[in-house]
């Protein structure tokens, strides 16, 4: 009996060691706006493959600076196309490994029910002191918001009412705390369990702005890491696609 137990114990330990040999770790840099869905995707990925994904989130520009200066990241999920492309050109990323993992949707949102109408007319009525956007210079959602205002011919009229968040998370914070009555944010920020959360929202029509493609790329350090490649493949798969859509992104 004791011997039987001993044998099964040894078997369990050997199995654990075996799994450990095949499993690898991958260090992932994730743009702040995608950290929520990525945590879910990583959990499924870990359960299915036995690999481990360590996630670090930050603004795309900051992550770029860290990657160029020796940060130990192996896979990079950026909030734009430009930065992964630049890393590829500079030889810091694996050529040909770049792909679009999600397309961001821009919305005009207010936490106040009934304030934002479904055609964005609220922008013309201009019954607000501050309109929050992300920095057009550094954040793709900010650039998209400016594009929308320009297409609507409202950029000049509303210029003095704009307040700028350093990134899309801070922009959301300005609006959700009521300091700005409404703002252009990512649809993913107001999705709760696959549905729209509280407040009122205008889904900005796709023809008013250039699609916000979020690209991922395998970095130089991840070249020979099977887990990095596996996670990149997993992101392209259907499980990831479902999670990504439930957060309000397109594929």
């Amino acid at each position, binding site marked *: 009996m004791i011997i039987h137990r001993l044998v099964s114990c040894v078997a369990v330990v050997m199995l654990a060691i075996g799994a450990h040999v095949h499993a690898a770790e991958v260090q992932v840099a994730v743009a702040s706006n995608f950290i929520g869905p990525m945590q879910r995707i990583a959990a499924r990925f870990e359960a299915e493959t036995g690999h481990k994904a360590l996630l670090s989130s930050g603004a795309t520009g*900051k992550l770029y600076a860290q990657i160029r200066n020796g940060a130990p990241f192996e896979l990079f999920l950026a909030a734009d196309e430009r930065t992964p492309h*630049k890393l590829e050109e500079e030889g810091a990323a694996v050529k040909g490994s770049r792909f679009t993992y999600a397309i961001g949707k821009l919305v005009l949102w207010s936490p106040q029910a009934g304030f934002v109408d479904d055609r964005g007319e609220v922008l013309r009525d201009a019954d607000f002191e501050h309109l*929050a956007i992300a920095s057009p*210079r550094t954040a793709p959602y900010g650039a998209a918001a400016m594009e929308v205002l320009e297409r609507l011919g409202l950029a000049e009229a509303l210029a003095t009412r704009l307040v*700028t968040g*350093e990134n899309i998370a*801070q922009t959301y914070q300005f609006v959700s*705390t009521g*300091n700005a009555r409404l703002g252009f944010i990512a649809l993913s920020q107001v999705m709760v369990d696959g549905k729209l959360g509280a407040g009122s929202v205008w889904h900005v029509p796709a023809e008013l702005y250039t699609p916000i493609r979020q690209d991922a790329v395998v970095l130089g350090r991840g070249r020979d890491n099977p887990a990095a490649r596996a996670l990149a493949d997993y992101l392209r798969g259907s499980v990831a696609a479902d999670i990504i859509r439930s957060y309000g992104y397109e594929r």
Partner: protein
Amino acid sequence: MLGADDLAAIRLTLELATTTTAILLVIGTPLAWWLARTRSALKRVIRAVVALPLVLPPTVLGFYLLLAMGPNGPVGQFTAALGLGTLPFTFAGLVIGSVFYSMPFVVQPLQQAFESIGPRPLEVAATLRAGPWDTFFSVVLPLARPGFITATILGFAHTVGEFGVVLMIGGNIPEKTRVVSVQVYDHVEALAYTQAHWLAGGLVLFSFLVLLALYSGRRSPSGWG
């Protein structure tokens, strides 16, 4: 080189630091005097509150200021009731944030200067029939001069170096809330490293010169904290 945006940010930063330092000297002097003289049990509590920004991350301070000064916060409802609107995204809001943020850098050197005077000169002044105001201006102020210089320099320099609070409550508005540190961050985020270098290098030089002036001018080798 520095662009028009950068120059505007520098001008705004200097305005913010000057205003903040002036306000802090006005509020900080009586506060430091009270802290130096009182035997009240409240002293420890007030000292701890004044020193809080030394240990709190500026994002914490900024976050609570954003909530408090927002339309749903107590300060915001008060300012709105006065017809002043709300303070985030305004220069006045930045000044208030900076006053909290730089408070210990002004109050602590002043308090130390007042404490180091000791009771004796005040007693002498009293026996010469000097009134409290006269004593303060003719005896205390001249004796505490080094403390005032230290407080002014540190309060100013620390406000110039402020980032987290401004980021949280500023809204990055050119000529209103976009200070140098935020502008540097913006350049770095936009991968405009050359422009970032000009401003960032300038800040390093400025800070070094300030500290050099501080340590050259000080007679006593003891620290101020």
